[in-house]
């Protein structure tokens, strides 16, 4: 168990491309941190730098009070689960798990003990231990990859999109299992994913990354409730947050020429971007309306219904209603949201006001 600290970590490739622009994260002992962002945002690069598979251009990475910048991956006391599992195809499942321990000179009976224990935790049968990886299903291979990490009893687990090769149902199941396993082992973990549902459900804290920068670091609910930037607001939450262009005038924000929305008192006059989550908009009687929407498409999902429409000035808005709506496509509906659920951003910098 160990703390992991990243101080001003940067990565510049020899061709001059800067993949990571200085990231500071302190990960507490036993914490489950998820790095999330769109592809190409540098999340995998950052993870691989912690693993020692990529060099660190600048800054410092320490694992358990020990600076590891110059250490080989094997000496960092980490274990990694790869996206495609990277199991050794010619070795049996048992040997796949035991390989790292053998290279460390762990005594035979100790290896045996640890592999059995890991197989037990992951519900891999004796018969499966003797098989080759290709004779296993995707989910079982995933377990073996996890097992290879567990037997090492490392200070830190690193996961690089481990569930993206699984089908949707299995992904949900493995998501829960990984989380449960991490809880019971109490090992500090860094998990990379582009899937925001995985990120929200698994993380103790999220690091939302974009273009090599950490846009926001916080618990999933913090990130959801108080997104620090337009990017985070748009990335976290599904369907994505609606952004409306408006103007702030004397502490009120006017959108689409409609009545002013309550805004923080210190909001400076000028253009402003208003963020509204689809699930926070409700259909109301005409009197309390903040916005008026012309519904263009209604998508019933069973429990919820998504309604896509346009405001008078043509801005697109999506709302999410529970149950079946009473109106159809082409109807005009009045919408309102609670003041607490309005997010205001500076359109220039993209930062939260």
């Amino acid at each position, binding site marked *: 168990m160990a703390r992991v600290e990243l101080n001003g970590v940067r990565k510049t490739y020899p061709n001059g491309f800067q993949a990571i622009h200085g990231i500071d994260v302190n990960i507490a002992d036993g914490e489950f941190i998820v790095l999330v962002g769109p592809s190409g945002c540098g999340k995998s690069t950052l993870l691989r730098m912690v*693993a*020692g*598979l990529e060099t660190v251009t600048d800054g410092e990475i320490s694992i358990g009070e020990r600076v590891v910048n110059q250490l*080989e*991956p*094997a000496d960092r006391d*980490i*274990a*990694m689960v*790869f*996206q*495609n599992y*990277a*199991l*050794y*195809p*010619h*070795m049996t499942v048992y040997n796949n798990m035991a*390989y*790292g321990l053998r*290279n*460390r000179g762990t005594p035979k009976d100790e290896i045996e003990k640890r592999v059995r224990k890991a197989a037990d935790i992951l519900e891999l049968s004796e018969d499966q231990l003797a098989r080759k990886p*290709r004779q296993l299903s995707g989910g079982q291979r995933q377990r073996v990859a996890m097992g*290879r990490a567990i037997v090492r009893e490392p200070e830190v687990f690193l996961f690089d999109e481990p569930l993206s090769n699984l089908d949707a149902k299995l992904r949900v199941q493995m998501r829960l299992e990984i989380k449960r396993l991490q809880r019971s082992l109490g090992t500090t973990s860094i998990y990379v994913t582009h899937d925001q549902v995985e990120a929200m459900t698994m993380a103790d804290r999220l690091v939302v990354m974009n273009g090599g920068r950490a846009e926001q670091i916080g618990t999933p609910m913090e990130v959801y409730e108080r997104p620090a930037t337009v990017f985070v607001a748009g990335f976290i939450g599904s369907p994505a947050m609606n952004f409306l262009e408006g103007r702030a005038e004397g502490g009120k924000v006017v959108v689409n020429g409609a009545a002013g929305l309550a805004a923080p008192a210190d909001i400076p006059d000028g253009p402003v971007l208003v963020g509204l989550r689809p699930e926070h908009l409700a259909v109301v009687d005409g009197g309390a309306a903040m916005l008026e929407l012309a519904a263009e498409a209604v998508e019933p999902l069973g429990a919820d219904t998504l309604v896509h429409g346009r405001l008078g000035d043509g801005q697109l808005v999506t709302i999410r209603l529970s149950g079946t709506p009473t109106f159809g496509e082409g109807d005009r509906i009045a919408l309102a949201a609670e003041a607490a659920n309005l997010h205001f951003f500076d359109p220039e910098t993209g930062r939260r006001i």
Partner: protein
Amino acid sequence: MVENRPFATFVSHFVLILGVAIVAFPIWITFVAATHDGVRITQVPLPLLPGDQLFANLESAFFTGVGNAREQSVGMMLFNSLVMALMIAGGKIAISLLSAFAIVYFRFPFRMGFFWMIFITLMLPVEVRILPTFAVVANLGMLNSYWGLSIPLIASATATFMFRQVFLTVPDELLEAARIDGAGPLKFFRDILLPLSRTNIAALFVILFIYGWNQYLWPLLVTTDKSMYTVVMGIKQMLEAAEESPEWHLIMLTTLLAMLPPVLVVVVMQKMFVKGLTETEK
């Protein structure tokens, strides 16, 4: 095909059987000649059915020798050929594996330069560089030795190139997983790359063994001592008997024996690499 057209079946079978006959007939003649005595074989017409002298011929080939290679038994020649072919095949595979490993997995200056230098040697087979190579081997005192027979033939651009392609198909994650598992470069090579290239090694071995076994010109140059003759060049020497007419029955028998090991290698290894190919997954 599920079509039932007797005439088409007849024609296709006829063509195939004709092809087999064209290939097999000379081998059959060789076999027949090896089973008769020296007198019968020189008479016209050539016998088409096997005689009863096979074991007698075997005995004289193995214990008295033939023609110009008189003091040298066929057994010894077969042994020399075997050693040479194994050294060439083994050496080529070992060197190519290591050089491909260096080129694919290490970042050293002029890496691609070295790769192309190896690749360009494809244009320099033994026949082209035969004089300088002979001079080097002679100066190193390796004439009439297994080393002299095999070392100049060991460098192989084709095999290096092939292993390079094989290594390029091995996913990078395997290397990374091995690094995290604490395997150094040589351990990774031994524990992961070698087993993964097993089938390719088998396939190459077949090709290279036959290449080595069939060497003619090079052994002819570097061996003057009869005890170092290989069987392929030995057959030629048998033809050059000084005072007598060639002993065709023994020469044919030797030819037959010379054909056997490559056939055996193909038959035995084929099973292995077909099985390997169907199992391969990287």
